[in-house]
């Protein structure tokens, strides 16, 4: 992409962020990270690569998310309700942008397939009934059922960017929140913002899914409650020559 095109693209993203700040307060704090990743996404996407050259260091006081978490369906967004609100939001945005003629309009008018597709896709990737989080000073690993682990090897850094053939991602700290932002092919962008309640008993995962064909992103907020899984009587270890080797707790093999 030429430099002028890149600038215009970044500027329009910045405008999108500014708009969303008014509409979706929850998105506001992740806007800077979204901006950084989106602009980075237009750069080279080669084999998996890690870029830490520009990242500053974090403050050192990190929120500890580690533990076992199960979805709290009462507190979490009900998808049908969320979808109704989303459609209303799109209608409002479209009407407003037509009236104001600011240029902030979805490409090619209302694309119903794209809107429905985005909503369906967002619902699919935010099911995640269980989360298993391990975290230390080097990084965080969020194990999700039926999906890849969200991992961030932040070390001393505020954020880490990486890229592979199919997308760019950025993860890091946004104050006390952990943010994962992915910019994928076909204009798809996903961000997960994770925060902890003051008493440490509730975890919030706010997922924002956007497509460059739909003006308003889908935002889904899910809550998780800490739980203690039943004690495992087996201590298992992965090996290369013998696959998984398990021993009974308290007994030698």
């Amino acid at each position: 992409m030429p430099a002028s095109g890149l600038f215009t693209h970044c500027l329009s993203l910045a405008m999108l962020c500014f708009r969303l700040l008014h509409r979706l307060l929850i998105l506001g704090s992740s806007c800077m990270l979204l901006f950084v990743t989106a602009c980075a996404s237009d750069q080279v996407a080669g084999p998996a690569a890690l870029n830490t050259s520009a990242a500053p260091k974090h403050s050192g006081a990190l929120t500890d998310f580690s533990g076992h978490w199960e979805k709290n369906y009462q507190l979490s967004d009900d998808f049908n309700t969320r979808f109704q609100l989303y459609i209303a939001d799109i209608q409002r945005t479209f009407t407003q942008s037509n009236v104001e003629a600011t240029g902030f309009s979805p490409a090619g008018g209302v694309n119903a397939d794209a809107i429905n597709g985005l909503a369906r896709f967002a619902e699919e990737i935010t099911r995640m009934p269980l989360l298993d989080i391990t975290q230390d000073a080097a990084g965080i690993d969020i194990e999700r059922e039926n999906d890849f682990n969200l991992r961030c090897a932040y070390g001393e850094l505020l954020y880490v960017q990486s890229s592979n053939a199919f997308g760019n991602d950025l993860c890091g700290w946004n104050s006390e929140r952990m943010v994962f932002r992915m910019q994928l092919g076909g204009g798809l962008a996903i961000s997960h913002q994770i925060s902890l309640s003051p008493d440490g008993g509730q975890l919030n995962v706010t997922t924002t899914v956007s497509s460059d064909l739909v003006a308003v992103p889908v935002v889904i907020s899910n809550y998780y409650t800490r739980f203690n899984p039943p004690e495992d009587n087996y201590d298992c270890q992965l090996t290369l020559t013998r696959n998984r080797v398990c021993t009974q707790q308290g007994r030698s093999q």
Partner: protein
Amino acid sequence: MRLWPLLLVMLLAPVSSTQAQSGDGFVDVSIGIFVHSPPAPVVVAPNATKTPAAVAEPKQVAAVRTAETRFLPMYLRYRLEQTGNFGAVRVLPVPDNGAELKISGEIVRSDGAVLELAIKASDSTGRLWLDRSFSGNAVASETLSGDAIAEDAFAGLFADIVRELQRQLTALSADDINRIETVALLRYGLGLVPEAFSPYLSEDANGVAIIKRLPAADDPILTRIVSVREREYLFIDVVDAAYGQFYADVKPVYDLWREFQREQTDSSAARTARELAAGSDFARGSYRALQESYNNYRWTKLQELYVDELGEGFTNEVEPTSLQLDDSVFRLSGTLEQQYRDWRRILAELFALETQ
């Protein structure tokens, strides 16, 4: 307890003949533990106000890298021994003062599919035998004899290194070899009793040794130096045996790790190329297109996870052996260092007494 009376008896006692004794007409080889090339330096923007922070190496990656620094020199050792053209070949965790031929190695690249090593070899006189990179692709090799040493994915690369060293060796005359042995002994003596050995040896501007004169064959201090060196070899051989055990324990796991890593790299590259070339059949922005985009990305993330699991499996299996080796090396190196200090002090005292 003061050790020096015991050491004094040891120094004055006759030395039993061992295979590693100097002057046997074979060049003994000391191979140092290899090192990994440092990562490429991070480019800092000219106007940057903060230095980029370091990212710690994941534990599973560190375990593989550490194992390689020990495994690869051991493999080179076995290959050199197999030729029968060299003397004793040892792998050492510390620099060898009296090495006849010293080999050091740097692992430039090792990902299961490609291995690149920068090898440097020089003899005691300062002559450079080898200073170049060797690179090779993994080739599954199986021998009719089931020779475990020859059956290595990078056997060809090591054969090249050995061939190059042998080429240098065959170019040497008997006098050259004799000179290498003599200088090695004098250098060893210089490290222990500098005041006694400094008149014998100097170096030119290029670091090549110049023998100014030789001690008498029955020089008592030389006899003691030979005696001390033989005893040091006994310690070194124990460390060397610990490396041998490590090699034997780690080889099946490391071979498997390299094989899995190679398969993963190949299949990953093939799928990525296929997906990128094929493009998408679905309308941009549709549910199917989004799903396809996400699935491709998810697949690469799962591949990363798989590679980490390989590393984790490797670490879990190799860590106990690795710790055992660390412990042996630490204990024996510590003992050797202490012995060396004691020998140096006693020899200096003896030399002072004899020259009074």
